[in-house]
């Protein structure tokens, strides 16, 4: 009885997410076609590149790894009533931290811990500005993302630059890397770390007092305060936990992805995951378990994009599709709306 109750509760958001994805794919096809590309060929390449073989699917899972972690940042924020879009900048610092610490203490655990700690630290400015100065987190986190970008570029190219290659940082030593799960792919234990983190976040949000406090604050800060919850603490924790998963994303991304195991010029291999994580979270309905699945879907888009690029379609097209999916997710009652349209069509 209770099980079917909660299942039904999940079914509608799930269907709406699927619908939003379909809309993204459809409108994306129109854009492709209008730009003079063969949409079917492009999508074919996308599917082939992401799921056609075990190797390709491993690529998909590898791509989903940082996305799952940055999506958790947004989800924890969203559940607390915060629009935390600061994962992007935090990822850079998580990666830098892993590169830095691994030179001194070369084992995987130190990199992961450093990423998490630095992520928590970088979350503090936005958290404190929000709680004590009332600065809206959308503005502060975006500004901090840009600041993080330039500082990370400087750190990467001035402090941690590789002595042999001025276009990237020093590499993570082999003993500090995350072992691969599958040979000749980029799928490492990082994916397992991401999934475990999602489960931990789920437990925090739904089975601890802190999670109860954060969610209560997210729905209604006034009622939460009445209920004995400290809204400031709830908000700060939300930023900090979000910072941790984003920092971890950056660390895992450099520690687990061959061949370079380093940050490349312009932060190219750690750039964009924070923003994409927002979409992953929205499609996953801000739920850690939903995020694992939508993370894999976005990972597939990322993995397939490379193949699509080889077929002649610029891979940035995938970002457009993701954007359209998010806009579609924002349409309230999408399911009811489409139902109504069909009913009207039949009459």
């Amino acid at each position: 009885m209770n099980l079917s109750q909660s299942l039904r509760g999940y079914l509608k958001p799930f269907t709406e997410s699927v619908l939003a994805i379909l809309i993204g794919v459809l409108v994306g096809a129109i854009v492709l076609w209008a730009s003079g590309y063969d949409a079917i060929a492009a999508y074919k390449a996308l599917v082939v590149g992401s799921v056609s073989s075990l190797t390709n699917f491993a690529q998909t899972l590898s791509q989903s790894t940082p996305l799952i972690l940055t999506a958790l940042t947004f989800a924890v924020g969203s559940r607390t009533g915060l629009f935390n879009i600061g994962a992007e900048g935090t990822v850079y610092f998580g990666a830098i931290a892993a590169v830095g610490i691994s030179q001194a203490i070369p084992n995987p655990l130190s990199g992961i811990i450093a990423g998490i700690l630095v992520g928590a630290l970088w979350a503090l400015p936005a958290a404190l500005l929000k709680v004590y100065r009332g600065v809206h987190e959308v503005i502060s986190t975006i500004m901090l993302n840009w600041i993080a970008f330039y500082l990370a570029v400087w750190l990467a190219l001035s402090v941690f630059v590789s002595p042999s290659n001025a276009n990237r940082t020093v590499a993570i030593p082999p003993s500090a890397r995350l072992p691969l799960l599958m040979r000749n792919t980029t799928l490492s234990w990082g994916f397992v770390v991401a999934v475990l983190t999602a489960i931990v976040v789920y437990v925090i949000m739904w089975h601890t007092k802190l999670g109860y406090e954060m969610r209560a604050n997210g729905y209604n800060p006034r009622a939460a305060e009445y209920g004995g919850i400290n809204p400031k603490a709830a908000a700060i924790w939300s930023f900090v936990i979000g910072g941790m998963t984003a920092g971890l994303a950056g660390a895992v991304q450099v520690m687990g992805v061959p061949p370079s195991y380093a940050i490349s010029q312009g932060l190219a291999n750690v750039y964009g995951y924070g923003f994409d994580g927002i979409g992953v979270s929205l499609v996953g309905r801000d739920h850690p378990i939903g995020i694992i699945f939508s993370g894999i879907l976005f990972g597939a888009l990322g993995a397939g994009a490379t193949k699509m690029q080889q077929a002649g379609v610029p891979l940035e097209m995938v970002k457009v599709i993701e954007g359209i999916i998010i806009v579609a997710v924002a349409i309230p009652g999408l399911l009811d709306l489409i139902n109504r349209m069909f009913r009207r069509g039949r009459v």
Partner: protein
Amino acid sequence: MNTGMILGLTLGSLAAMVPIVLTSVGAAISERAGVVNIGYEGILMLSAFFGTITAELAHNGWVGLLGGALTGIAIGIVHGVITVYLKGDHVIPGIGINLIGYGGVAFGILAYWGTAGQHQVAPNAQIKPLWMDAFGNSLSPMVVITIAVAFIAWWVLFKTPFGLRIRAVGENPEAADALGVNVELYRFTAVLIASALSGIAGAYLSVDWLGTVTKTIAAGRGFIALANMVFSGWDPILSLVGGLIFGFFDNLAIYIQNNPWLAGTIPWQFIATLPYLVTLLVVAGIIGRARAPKWDGIPYKRE
């Protein structure tokens, strides 16, 4: 400091002010009517791109601005329908719009011009400056127009029936509705005005100020404009002041990077953080006093 440098910095600040103020003024109108949009960054991106295309097709920068405005309006329609008519969340669509903006422009530059990441706007598609000196300092007519727009927007908001209704639907839509003010229509109109202004700002980036389209051309200005809107207390005329401050630091970063004798002393990346750092500090100092419209970002449904 010499006079040439002062002149250069002043004109540069004014040029950098234009996109921020146009977007801030639009955002202020939209939020006064109760609609939040964080997708201005995406609008700036896409209208810089489509503005360039239309300008190059017409061999006329002004047509490019029109193209930018229309691009903005098209995006505004999507945002307006979702937020005003379907009563959806005001923030999420903007996230999507920004993603489409960044992805779409990178894709579009490749797809349309076949170059990666950047396209130089044809000289005959750029807006001619009002005044220019031998060192490349110039004054765009858009500076004058932007200042005029801020004053006109203020006048319309605070002196005309239209403005009274815009403010009423953002402060208390129930009261406005009861007196026959069409809440949805005024909110939607405000969204369109905002996106059109932001669209013009985007086209200005490419066909006037920078003379190029890049895949990161907006560079956070959509968000700086939102910060400026808060800073100016949702007041179009005051947004000129904030716009100048933000414009100064935005331009200063570019200016220092282009002056090797200065850039040598500090890493350029530190200077590049200036506009964002200043925005943060200013907003942190100002909030608390600023008071947003009461129904800002809240969908209005009749009982």
